[in-house]
């Protein structure tokens, strides 16, 4: 539940920032790629914090990390129980998701 609470809070902050700054309404929606992250890195901290898309993307990413965190906890439980068969299965699932993340970074 912690993951969706953090995610929901970040999204609400993002929409509050968006509603409070009408100048963003006409700005094309940025794609959260390395180029955009590079632009953000070159900005000042207040600029980053006031950018609604930073909060919205952070909320989406927090949500996307929730099931991955759940998988790590599941894997840890199997490890404590010394259930090597299911430790292996968890590692395979995490590897497939890792490939998906790797693909998205390379792409």
């Amino acid at each position, binding site marked *: *539940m912690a*993951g*969706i609470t953090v*995610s*929901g809070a970040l*999204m*609400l902050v*993002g*929409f509050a920032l*968006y*509603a409070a700054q009408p100048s963003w*309404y006409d700005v094309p*929606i940025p*794609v*959260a*790629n390395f180029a955009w992250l590079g632009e953000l890195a070159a900005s000042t901290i207040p600029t980053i914090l006031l950018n609604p*898309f930073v909060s*919205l*993307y952070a*909320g*989406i990413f927090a*949500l*996307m990390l*929730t*099931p*991955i965190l*759940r*998988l790590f906890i*599941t894997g840890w*439980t199997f490890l404590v129980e010394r259930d090597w068969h*299911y430790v292996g*299965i*968890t590692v*395979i*699932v995490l590897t*497939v*998701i890792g*490939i*998906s*993340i790797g*693909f*998205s*970074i390379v*792409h």
Partner: protein
Amino acid sequence: MSPTLFLLVVLSGAVTGVLGALLGIGGGIFLIPVLVVGFGLPMHQAVAASVVTIIATSSATASVYVDKGISNIRLGMSLEVMTTIGAVLGGVTANYLPGNALQKIFAIFLLVMAGLMWNKTRKHGEAQIAYDAAARITGEYYDEAEKRTVRYSVRRLPAAMLASIVAGNLSGLLGIGGGLIKVPVMNMVSGIPMKAATATSNFMIGVTAVASAFIYFSYGHLNPLYTSAAVLGVLAGSQLGTRLGAKLRSRTITYVFIVLILVVAGRMMF
């Protein structure tokens, strides 16, 4: 995005969340047509938004079912290997298909699902549940409604794994949870009680969705405004749906839902 549009997308997400909680599905079969037909969002962006809302639905419900011991984690993880592979392949494939082709595939899928839901609701049957202590995967949970401990063993795991790769592929391709495929297969083929099958599916759909979510993100299909608004709606709707579930007749809801998806399928097809 205007405040009115924001509220309408949140409302659509809330209806998705209510339906998801009531029917035990991810809700993509409602949300995607609404985003495409109602709001004119490109098909790929609607699918990406749906994939992320599935993670929200799964995260909101799975922790409750896992805590109560209803989700069968070992079964879920065994099936998840195939489902995630299917989801990644589906996600990649979807990005090479034109939007209108994806829309037509989705419409055909809706028609098939309407038929399956109609059939399932009319029969209202549940598989015979058996327990074999020597089986590779077994499970037990306390059923609060029946006030007894339910024990079961998993049969025909390879068949369930095959269905899981199909469900994962459709999840990645069309942005649906895949519960409409996995739950009946777990119940009817593998002999898992309906409650455990639904709870295990809820545990799985979030992991499956995350595998394809990164692919959609990498292709630039993730619209943060529509996705976040839909997620906020889903989070509120799933809470409401859980409470409504005890009071409403699920059969009536399902019939209304079937009519709705038939209309939407027709609209998406032509």
